[in-house]
């Protein structure tokens, strides 16, 4: 919402919204289970929620209070400009056109074709091992940046560690607060064969206008790998 210039229309956010800094100062309505009371107390005209969580009961409760709940789907990269356009149009936000163009142009700018695409493993959780597979947000980023996914199954499965050893990836990505030590103990080959890099959690696990920053970060990482 801030990207399209509708930030001043925001009256409250969930506990996890901390970017941009202005969002941190807004009243919070809760985390995994947002508080109906707090939402109603903030007196919004509508509520926007991501598609990654299940809000059916919340939707029904909000409807009873006359507040519509709208789900925003940003699971894939190509959904992001569309959603931004949609949100901007709904809210009559002034910078919609510019923001959407910025994302589209940014992604185009970051698109690469590489002679030797690196195989990348995104570790969503180390123990047990959960990875980012095909047809996910990170998979789309790989495609943009000219890399390949080391995992060929779809979505975010629990993955056999031995498969990671049998064909080790070139690059391993994980968000900065994860403790991957258990994974490295079980599979020291990762440290030996792959480049381990922490990535910005905000960019990589919360698809949105920052996707351009995510792609840029990924390109920097791959460039670094190519120089080794």
């Amino acid at each position, binding site marked *: 919402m801030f990207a399209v210039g509708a930030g001043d229309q925001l009256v409250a956010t969930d506990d*996890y919204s901390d970017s941009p800094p202005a969002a941190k100062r807004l009243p919070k309505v809760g*985390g*995994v*289970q947002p508080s109906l009371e707090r939402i109603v107390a903030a007196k919004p005209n509508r509520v926007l929620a991501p598609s990654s969580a299940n809000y059916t009961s919340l939707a029904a409760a909000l409807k009873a209070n006359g507040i519509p709940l709208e789900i925003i789907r940003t699971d894939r990269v190509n959904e992001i400009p569309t959603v931004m356009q949609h949100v901007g149009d709904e809210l009559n936000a002034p910078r919609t056109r510019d923001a959407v163009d910025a994302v589209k142009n940014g992604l185009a700018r970051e698109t690469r074709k590489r002679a030797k695409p690196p195989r990348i493993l995104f570790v969503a*959780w180390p*123990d*047990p*091992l959960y990875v980012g597979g095909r047809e996910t947000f990170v998979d789309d980023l790989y495609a943009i940046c000219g890399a390949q996914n080391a*995992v060929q*199954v779809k979505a975010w*499965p*629990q*993955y*056999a*560690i*031995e*498969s990671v*050893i*049998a064909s080790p990836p070139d690059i391993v990505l994980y*968000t900065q*607060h*994860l*403790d991957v*030590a*258990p*994974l490295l*103990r*079980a*599979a020291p*080959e990762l440290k030996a064969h792959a480049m381990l890099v922490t990535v910005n959690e905000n960019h990589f696990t919360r698809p949105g206008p920052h996707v351009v920053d995510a792609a840029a970060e990924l390109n920097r990482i791959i460039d670094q790998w190519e120089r080794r």
Partner: protein
Amino acid sequence: MGTPLSHARAILILSLVLLAAIVLAVAAGATPISWRAFFDGDATMRAIVLRIRLPRVIAGALIGATLAVAGVTFQTLLRNPLADPFILGVSGGAACGAAVASAFGLARVPGLVPVIAFAGACGATAAVFLLARRRGRSDATRLLLSGLVLNALFSALILIAFGLAPANDVNAALRWMIGTLSGATWNDALLLAVLFVAAMIVLVFIANDLRLLVFGEDDARARGVDVERIKLLGFGAASIITGAAVAVAGIIGFVGLLVPHLVRMMWRRDFRFLLPLCALAGGSLLVVSDLVSRVVIAPVELPVGAFTAILGVPFFLSVLRRER
């Protein structure tokens, strides 16, 4: 009628089953193994077989044996065919310890959460035992009720821990609630082996007395059994190894309930005979369940508890139907 020979034969059969299960589970998995390469010294093949699969399979056998032994011990001590290491609150305690520790970010300290889970299991056991004591004696009904109440308390604490935890650490708590053998190391296998052997020694020592408890505590007392001491040792041994199993793999249900009943149906004998048979059968069941969970949609792994539950639920219902 139940000669030592037929008992030895039963042990032999189940040992062979376990051995076959272990061999199969090490040979099969997400990656096709080239045995020629393995014997030629190929590092990757060796890593997969010796560092990933073998400790996992051995840990699985030990955990399965642990759960089944704990199950038959609890069922005998409590004179209730529906007693299970988890119904009594032992797993709840372990998972609660793990969840609360994760909620406070202690997952970052390597090895700390398993120790806390282990302590939670033993603490839960002590609480159940003490709560159900009255004038120095405990009663089967009170023990089961205590377990139920404690499980409710632990579930509530886990939910609160979820609510308090920063979002990402919620996953860490889930890791204990949904059991998996993924990532089991040789250290885990060693810990499980040492505790399992110690517990089995204790249980074999008291087996001749423990089996008399199925006739009732007064009856056993009249037959010269120090009932309180036997319960302390039996309950203690079973709970400590259960705590270790949950600490390594998280909650895996139904093995403790299912295996003793299956073994009892096939060999209608008392605790002394059932103890080794349950260990072997429990180990086999979990090794096979884990194998299936690894290969059915490889390289994706499914939770092993799903397969023990798929087998367990229809069986549980049939036992309930046959209960008087």
